[in-house]
């Protein structure tokens, strides 16, 4: 049972990691003069798009999200709309947090918002896919000892890693090296992506390592 779930999760994570890679490679073929630093926003949105698509296909179609009680179209539609609103709100939330951390308010607002979109894609979108637009479930998963399945634990780990990655990515900004990756928000978005990939890699390993200690309450 453990092995199966972990293997399934590992393959899903491999798909997600692959999507990041694809997201970086596709524009290199289509866009002229593409580079991660130079045309950073192109890279950022292409990664966002790829991760979003893979996320939605993997988690929605494979049916990991909790089974919905009603199957009416209107209910599904309302869920979809609510998810979109939540996503937008989370973008705004991240934007606010980044501004509070010292990003300039008006100048380079687009870059800041793009970073917020990336962070939302890496964190909120997964929550939406796996838990649905259900605040109570989110609070449960992200409170101490709240995980109820392997997927919850992996969600905790990847989300934490992405945010910490972006946090760490801010450190090189004050250094006076004048490198292209120190330009706002390159280091932060790279940090977030790196953290996300680390989380994807770490989650199955960590869960496998701790499978004796992990006991999930039954739903």
């Amino acid at each position, binding site marked *: 049972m453990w092995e199966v779930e972990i293997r399934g999760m590992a393959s899903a994570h491999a798909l997600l990691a692959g999507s990041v890679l694809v997201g970086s490679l596709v524009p290199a073929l289509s866009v002229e003069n593409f580079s991660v630093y130079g045309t950073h926003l192109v890279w950022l949105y292409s990664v966002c798009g790829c991760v979003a698509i893979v996320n939605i296909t993997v988690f929605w179609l494979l049916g990991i999200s909790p089974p919905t009680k009603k199957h009416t179209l209107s209910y599904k539609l309302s869920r979809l709309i609510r998810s979109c609103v939540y996503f937008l709100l989370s973008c705004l939330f991240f934007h606010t*947090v980044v*501004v*509070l*951390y*010292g990003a300039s*308010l008006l100048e380079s607002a687009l870059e800041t918002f793009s970073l917020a979109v990336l962070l939302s894609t890496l964190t909120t979108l997964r929550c939406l896919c796996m838990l649905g637009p259900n605040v109570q479930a989110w*609070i*449960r998963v992200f*409170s*101490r000892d*709240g995980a109820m399945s392997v997927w919850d634990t992996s969600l905790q780990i990847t989300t934490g890693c992405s945010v910490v990655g972006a*946090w760490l990515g*801010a450190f090189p*900004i*004050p*250094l*006076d*090296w004048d490198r292209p990756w120190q330009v706002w928000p390159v280091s932060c978005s790279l940090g977030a992506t790196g953290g996300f990939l680390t989380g994807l890699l770490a989650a199955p390993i960590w869960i496998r390592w701790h499978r004796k200690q992990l006991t999930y309450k039954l739903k």
Partner: protein
Amino acid sequence: MKLSSSVFSAICLIIELLGIALFLRGFFPVPIKSSLSSKSKLSDLPAEPVVGSSPNSTKVPPPLFNRVVIVLIDALRDDFVFGPNGKRFMPYTRNLVESGSSHGFIAKARPPTVTMPRIKALTTGSIPGFIDVVMNLNSQALLEDNLLWQAKNSGKRIIFYGDDTWVRLFPKHFLEYDGTTSFFVSDYTEVDNNVTRHLDSTLKRDDWDVLILHYLGLDHIGHISGPHSSLIGPKLLEMDDVIKKIHTSVITTEVEGRLPNLLVLCGDHGMSETGSHGGSSEPEVNTPLVLISPAFPMKEGMGETLVVEQVDLTPTLALALALPISQNSVGRLIPAVFEKASLREQLRYLHINGHQLSNLLRDSNPSFHKEDGYEQFRMAEKAHGSWMKLYVEGNTSEVLSNMAKKVFKQYLEALQAMSAALSKQLGKYDMYSMMVGMSLILQILVLLLLAMPEALSSAACVDVPLATTFLSLPFYLLVLLGFSVHVLVCTSSEASCYFCSLPWLLAFISIVFSSALFCSLVSMAARRALKVDNKQPKTSSSEWTLSELDVLLLIGTLGHTLSLASSSFVEEEHQTWYFLLNTLCLAVFQDVCRKYFREKRRPGEEEEESLLLPSTMEEKSASFSPVAELGVSADSEKWLALATPLLTLACCRMLRSLNQTGVQWAHLPDLSHWLNSGDHKVFLSLLSILSLLLIFLLVQRHCSLVSKIALALGLLGVYCYRAAVGSVLFPWQHSAQAMSKGTGEAHFVYIFVLGILFTGVKDLLRSQMMSSVADGRRMKSRGLWEVYSGMVLFVALLFRAHNLPTLACCLLIQTLMAQFIWKRLHYDAAQTTIMHCWFGQAFFYFQGNSNNIATVDISVGFVGLESYVEAPAVFLTAFSTYAGPLLWACHLVCYLNSERDRAVSLGHSSYCFALLRSIPAVFYIVLVTALRYHLFIWSVFSPKLLYEAMHTLITTAVCLFFTFMDQDRTRRP
């Protein structure tokens, strides 16, 4: 010896302060300055020494050269001219050196081998130390006596092209100048073309006497690709062309009836094998010095190149141009330059140089009589006098010239000895003092770390086994060892050493103390190890669970300490603090969310709460209970608690854009510029009024009625003061009154500050006398709050008008945090202290401070004073600079005093204060010692070192205050 935590930490900090002071004394050698602040004049020149009363001629010997061209090539290493590279890439110059009429020397530069101090050395002849550089940050212009000033003063017209450091150092000295910024290191052609493009026209003209060219390109190439790069060759060829051009057009063309011209080619410093500079390695220090003039004899072949000091150029040029030698010059003239002068003149030159050096020696060294050089100079002067007597009498025999040679030699030896004695005193780190200071503070840090479990225990007592060590053998062995090392170092070192110059008794006491400390450290460590061994089976890992907040506080403290190793992070330290503070607020927010949303209280906790209830009821009036104070219901309390961290975040974001500090982004426009720009005076006035109102509302809560009135009047006085100074508008006054200094208003506020502080201290003292414990506590917390409000009023007076919102936000955050966060979430004393420390640090930067000396607001020193008086000005400046940390520390005392278990918490928090200050300070001092030849040592690291030392001083004062507040616990159990 059993000490309570607060006493222990206060003692530790005091010892640490002594160690830092000793370290600083060794790190910043006292510069040698002539006691006279004026500049040397020609009329000060000594008379020619003649025995007897024959007519003394005090006239200056005539100049040797007419015009001088100085070509300074940045980072010109000696082998670029004298080595194989010189042969290949500088053929013309090399040819001149080998067979032209020229002199070539290797000039040794002194560290720091950085351009600005080197330029100072070349022009003043002194060796600028780091403290010199730090102290002169405010006045960019070189005020010391220097060659250029002397040249300008005697009517010489100077033209300068090149590095704009010169233009900043010597404003108004140049007839014509074009400065180039050395900003873009990647540019190595444009910077030099900027200089060379003026060359042709200038060389043709006849209206200048001194031409200075400073070429930067070579240095830039060195920084990009090192001394073996392929770019070096073409650059040297270009430089060679410049020399050729100057030589052919100015030097070789002799005009009848005029003195010959002189061309000086030199480098300010060399470059290391990696292309950088700043340190003291051979290739960085050795620079070529080539003097070319038809006045010199033609040479046949290049012999051994003589080694001179870089500063020797100053007296040589001064004498050759018949200028007075600048006062603080430690250089001695280069005799080869004066070969063609008559014997009498040569001796006269040497005499003038010797006289200047002996004057400087007398001023800077109290025991100058003992110096060999001084004695030799006196002897030589005497011999010179008797030679002159013979000369004046018309004796022209062989004896005369032989005697002259002897005097000449005597003079040279005297100059050498005096110059060596002078330069020994500076430019060198006093490593022994630094090491002693460093070992002292390292021991203190280890002591603090070892004492952590005891100091933070519920007893809050530290047992330092000092008494037992006095009886142990290793202690005596260590004392012997330390003393023998001390004697050995002090007798053998040729450099002057501060620690050695201390009285023997003092040195002995410190050695004894240091060894005792070391022994007790070892025994403490052994005890700790034993305890851990015994406990091993019992302790389980679950006992030491760290919450996210603890992890953050730990990582933040260590991360900040490590970040000090990078010069950029030192420059932008405020970013680190803002970043950490934001993260802290978010972590607190998460904790609050957890408390109010998810986790239901476990039954045990509920019981505990109810058990504690009676005691909290009893002291409700004095404590920070929101329910009693603001009349907030439990439900809205939850929402207020949730809003507090968010509000704090918003406040921090606002304050961050109020004062832009640091280096990289300091130029960006910020709110304070906008407010101070004159057009927005109305906004500034409104903002100040609002801030003052908020300050009053927040502070008056716990004050007695008298203090409340005093506070209100005082804050009104603050506004009047700002209006009188002219920074804000006064609503009732329409006549354009002349700007006054506002001394009366400031005095008015001072009276209230003193009054409130006096009431507070009186209450504190009375609380000690009270018989009833509850009354005593109430009195004490009121007294503390009054001291705090007095400080707030004082800070409000000192802060500039645009900084008043900073103060208001500080108080707001303190109030909210105390009401809803620290108490509600049961943070312990250590956590609260660390948070206070972080906030204090961040507010230090919110005020507009940075790690650069230039941002210290010196105008504060004049508040309420008619003229500059040193002691109050220094106190006021220090107080207003460190207002943020001080206010937070003071608030911490007030807050902890109202805590339930305050008996222990004051001790814990003073220990945390000491530890939090010691870790970065000690790390930074070790780091600075390791990086003492770093390129940025004097521009980035040294100012920060002074800030660290000052901050430690402030923390020590705070810790002493903590200790006094903690005293009644021992008296009244």
